[in-house]
Structures are given as structure tokens and as C-alpha cells.
């Protein structure tokens, strides 16, 4: 962990956000929108992110929430894909282009992109859980020669709830040595793809564990069953990576609430190998 030499742009005031302008908003699903932000003078972004890092996003008069920040190769803007679930996220879904909001960060350790070089990558996500993995997926495609086969397995409740449809159905399947599998929970008209839950679909696809790393993110119940499936399929605990979502307020390891044992997930996490999680108290 960095002691002192952290890379935030807080100008010595880590709880005070940078003001940014919303330059674009895209509807991803009926309850997920992507917000694109830039510095208010139109030049650049307040901070650069590594894949898997987060930002604390605030609609200043309302509140703040920790949101995964999408990695982009030339970091000209920041993108946050935000699901509407409560007080702040409801308000954020009401704002329009041009609104000034706050962001502070980047927070968290991010994905071990270097450790994974030379591996086959298996990305497994449910619902909004694709948002953090998408950074890593994009990173792999930008550095395609560094990674082996890429398998993406993604599910959501319904067709409408699938996030990032253009990437899922058009862009990613065209990438070399890549397979994309999409499933929805229940059959519906206009859907001729796979129907069923992610864990059983994963077992059906059965990507080989040898030389592979699985990266998992989604609702807690999905994560739980996917981890069981991976174990059954022969993945070791040091071949499985996940990212945790504890309640967070400060993002800098001070306010206390996001701990598991002596780890503060905002600072030491949120990305962990399953092997590391097994050493922590079972509060994840």
C-alpha cells in the first residue's frame, strides 16, 4: 500500500471533490446511465484511473457514492455507469448535460493487469457488475497481444437490463480470439439467446482453468454461486479475482465502515484474489 505517495489529486484535502462538468449522458438500461465528465474548462480530467479504480461521485447538494470509473486509453474524460438505487443515484438520473458535479479519487487498488499478462482471461459479470470489469476488458483489447484467449460471460434479469449492448453484441465479439456469451434470467419474446443464470451457464461453457484467470463481479448472490462453480471447474483460489462493494463514505481508509478485518476495502481493495479473501473474516 502506498504510504504517503498516493496518487489522488486532492491537493492535500482528500475529502474535498473536484468540480467537473457532465458532457454527455447515455441510457444504458432503464435504470443505468453512463455519465461522461470533464474539467469545467473543457480541458482534460481531474485524475487518471487505472482499470478497476473508483471515484467518489457527488451531486453536491445531495450526497456522494463510490462508483467504478471506466478506464479509457486516452483519458480525455471520465465515465461512470450508475444504477439508480437510492437517494443520490435517483437525483443523478435526473440531471442534464452541462450540470456540474463533484468527483474525487482515484480510489482503490485496481485490477492486477500486469499479473494477468500471458493468461487466458475469463470475465464473469452480472447486472451492473459489468461496469468495473469493462475497464479491464477494454484494457485487454487495447493491449491484445499481452493476453491469451478472452471469454466474457454476462447475464442480467432481462434483455432490457443488459448493460453496454453495443460492446457486447457488436464490438467485443469481433476482437481476435474472443468469445462473448450473454444470458438473461427468464425467456422473453425478441430474445433468441441463452436463458438461465450465470453460474450454470458458466459451467456449461466450462472455460479451461489451465493458464486462466477468472474475474468476477455482480450481485453478492451471483458471486457466491460463481465462486462455487469455478471451484468445481478446477480453478484455484489464486486464479480467481473479484471486486467487493462494501458501504463507503470517505474512500481513503479513515471513516471506518468498509473494513473486513484489518483491511479497508476502499484503500486496500476493492480488488482481491480469492486467495486473499479466504484469509479475511467471512464478511464479504
Amino acid at each position, binding site marked *: 500500500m502506498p*504510504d504517503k505517495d498516493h496518487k489522488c489529486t486532492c491537493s492535500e484535502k482528500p475529502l*474535498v471533490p473536484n*468540480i467537473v462538468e457532465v458532457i454527455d449522458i447515455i441510457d444504458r438500461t432503464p435504470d443505468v446511465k453512463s455519465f461522461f465528465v470533464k474539467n469545467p474548462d473543457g480541458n482534460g480530467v481531474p485524475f487518471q484511473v487505472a482499470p478497476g479504480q473508483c471515484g467518489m461521485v457527488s451531486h453536491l447538494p445531495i450526497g456522494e457514492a463510490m462508483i467504478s470509473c471506466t478506464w479509457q486509453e486516452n483519458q480525455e474524460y471520465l465515465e461512470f455507469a450508475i444504477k439508480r438505487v437510492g437517494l443520490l443515484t435517483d437525483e443523478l438520473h435526473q440531471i442534464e448535460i452541462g450540470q456540474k458535479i463533484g468527483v474525487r479519487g482515484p480510489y482503490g487498488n485496481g485490477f492486477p493487469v500486469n499479473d494477468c499478462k500471458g493468461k487466458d482471461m475469463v470475465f464473469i459479470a452480472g447486472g451492473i457488475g459489468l461496469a468495473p470489469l469493462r475497464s479491464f476488458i477494454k484494457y485487454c483489447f487495447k493491449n491484445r497481444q499481452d493476453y491469451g484467449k478472452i471469454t466474457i460471460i454476462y447475464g442480467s434479469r432481462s434483455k432490457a437490463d443488459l448493460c453496454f449492448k453495443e460492446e457486447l453484441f457488436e464490438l467485443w465479439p469481433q476482437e481476435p480470439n474472443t468469445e462473448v456469451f450473454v444470458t438473461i434470467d427468464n425467456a422473453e419474446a425478441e430474445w433468441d439467446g441463452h436463458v438461465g443464470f450465470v453460474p450454470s451457464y458458466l459451467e456449461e461453457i466450462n472455460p479451461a482453468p489451465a493458464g486462466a484467470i477468472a474475474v468476477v463481479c455482480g450481485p453478492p448472490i451471483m458471486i457466491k454461486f460463481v465462486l462455487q462453480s469455478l471451484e468445481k471447474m478446477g480453478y484455484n483460489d489464486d486464479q480467481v479475482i473479484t471486486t467487493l462493494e462494501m*458501504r463507503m*463514505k470517505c474512500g481513503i481508509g*479513515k471513516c471506518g*465502515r468498509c473494513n473486513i478485518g484489518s483491511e479497508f476495502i476502499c484503500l486496500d481493495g476493492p480488488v482481491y484474489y480469492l486467495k486473499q479473501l479466504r484469509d479475511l473474516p467471512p464478511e464479504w
Partner: protein
Amino acid sequence: MKVLSKDKLSTALNKLSDSAEVFVPMQKGKQSGYFTWKSFEEGQDELMLEALNVYQSPKNAVFPQTERIYGIASQGVEVNIDKTYEDTSANIIFGARGCDVKGIMAMDLAFLTKGYEDSLYKARRSANTIIANACYEPGPNCFCNAMEVNCVEPAGADVILHDVGDGYGWEVKSDKGEAVTALLADILEEKEVKLPAIKPFIQNVDYSGVAEKLKDMFDHPLWDKLAEPCVNCGMCTYVCPSCYCFDIQVKMWGEQGYRFRTWDSCMFEEYSREAGGGNPRGASKERFRQRFLHKLQFFKERYGTPLCTGCGRCMIVCPTDINIVRIIDAVKEAEINA
């Protein structure tokens, strides 16, 4: 040794208050805690320098119960942070006991190390001087000696007072201590003093090996029994000199407002409740276990010292008679069948 004669105490506190907020232990109406000397009302309030521990610790001097972080001005799509609230005005804690000094040392570790420095805490703390009050006669609830505290010579104090009957021996420990001593040059006297004899601790607490043993006790059945009476009222965290968890909230009046932080408690259900309704510590027992493991194991693992300073406050205020000393004893005695 320099001595502050007790009949010059208010003169000294007045003098110090000319250039700083001076927090002293006092009984103020129904409240007992550290309040500013400027707020002391002769005849109504009572100085509590003789008492071992007042109800509230002095942590509010460096980590107020609520404090503003920044001001917000919001109009249509525009929003501005018009002010941040680092407070660097001088403050002095006068008469803190060793356990409370250790509480601040622990908060220094939490707020000022491991990647980020908390600017609000740093501002208050760098303008803060600690004049400690050495303990020669531990009380019935004290066990600081078991929790890495030396209550006669507490580490982190800038000046240490030694009660010698009609005055306080004045032992300077740091540059900040020299600075406040200079302010009192006319008041302090040079005298021969005989320091009191150190009385033994009444409680006998053994924390050795507890942090290590707890590593294997997360799922131990003893937590069910220990936690059973707890009603998660949070009193223990409120009075604790080293509990530092906080919440961040916002207050707006129309277009103006501010973001602030306020003490929070791991004993509350909402503290760790996640969006989507999940909560890793949804059950009362899980929150109880979190508090005591944070005190006795987690903080020690992360920062090298326990987060309990042995002040004894939580066992006095607990409405259900939860006692951290009995928890330490129970951990010591517990059998682990792996």
C-alpha cells in the same frame, strides 16, 4: 522542577486562553467532559482535574462531534465549493489522563498515516498541545497499563502535570510544551517537589497474546454469549477516547449549504448497510464483534497498537453491563477447537 501552584490555576488557564481554546475537564450542568475554559462559569461549573476520567473524553478538541468539511453554493447547473474548513487555531487540552492521550495517539495513526492525511484532523492536531495529568492512583475501572499506556509518563504529551498536593509539577516534553511553558513564565515557580508514590492497579488485566489469539476466534461461539445483552445503543463508541469512525452528510438551505462529518458508530445497523439492502454486519452480534475486534485485534494488526486505551469508560456507561475487561478475560480463557 517547575511547579504550577494550584491557587494560580485559574490565572494560568486565563493566560493560556488568551492565545488558544483551552479544553479542561469539568462538570457542566449534567454533562461532564472537556469544555473550553472560556465557557467555565464560576459557581456553576466545577473543574474536574482531580477526577480520574470525566464522562466524555477530550477527543472533541481534535475531532469534534460534528465539523464542516466544505461549503457548497449551487445554482441551476452551476455548483461551487466556496470554502473549506481546516481549523488551525491554537487549542490546548489541559489535564488529559494517559489513556486519553493514547486515544489521540491512536487517532494520529488512523488519520495521518497509511496513504492519506486527513486535512481537517491534521489542521486541528498540528495546532493542538496536550498538557497531560499523570495518574498515580488508578481507579477501579482503569486498566491502561495492560493496553500499552504509561499513565505517569504518557507518550505524546507535550507537558505532564504531576499532582504534588498544593501544586502541579510541570514537566516539559516537547517543543510545543516549551511554547506553552513560555506563556506561563511569570506564573510557574521553580521548587523542590516530592512526586507521589505510584499506587498499584486495582484491576489485573492481561492483554498479551489476545490480538493473536483472536485471529482464530472470529466464528467462536463465545461471541453469541458475550453479545447477547448488547442493545447496540452506541454509548460505548461515543464516550471512547479512541473511537474515530465518522459519517459524511450534507446540509443545504436552498442554494447554500455545507458538507460535514459527524461521529458515527459501528454499533448502528445503518453504518455498514449497503445500497441494495445487504449488510455484512446486519446482526447485532456481528456489530458487537466488529467493535471489540477492531479495538483488540484489527487496529493492532494494521497500526501496531490496540485501539482500546484502558480508560474504562465504556463499561461505566453501558446500560447492559458489557465490560471489555471481561471480554479480554473470556478470550484468554476460551478454548479453540479448530
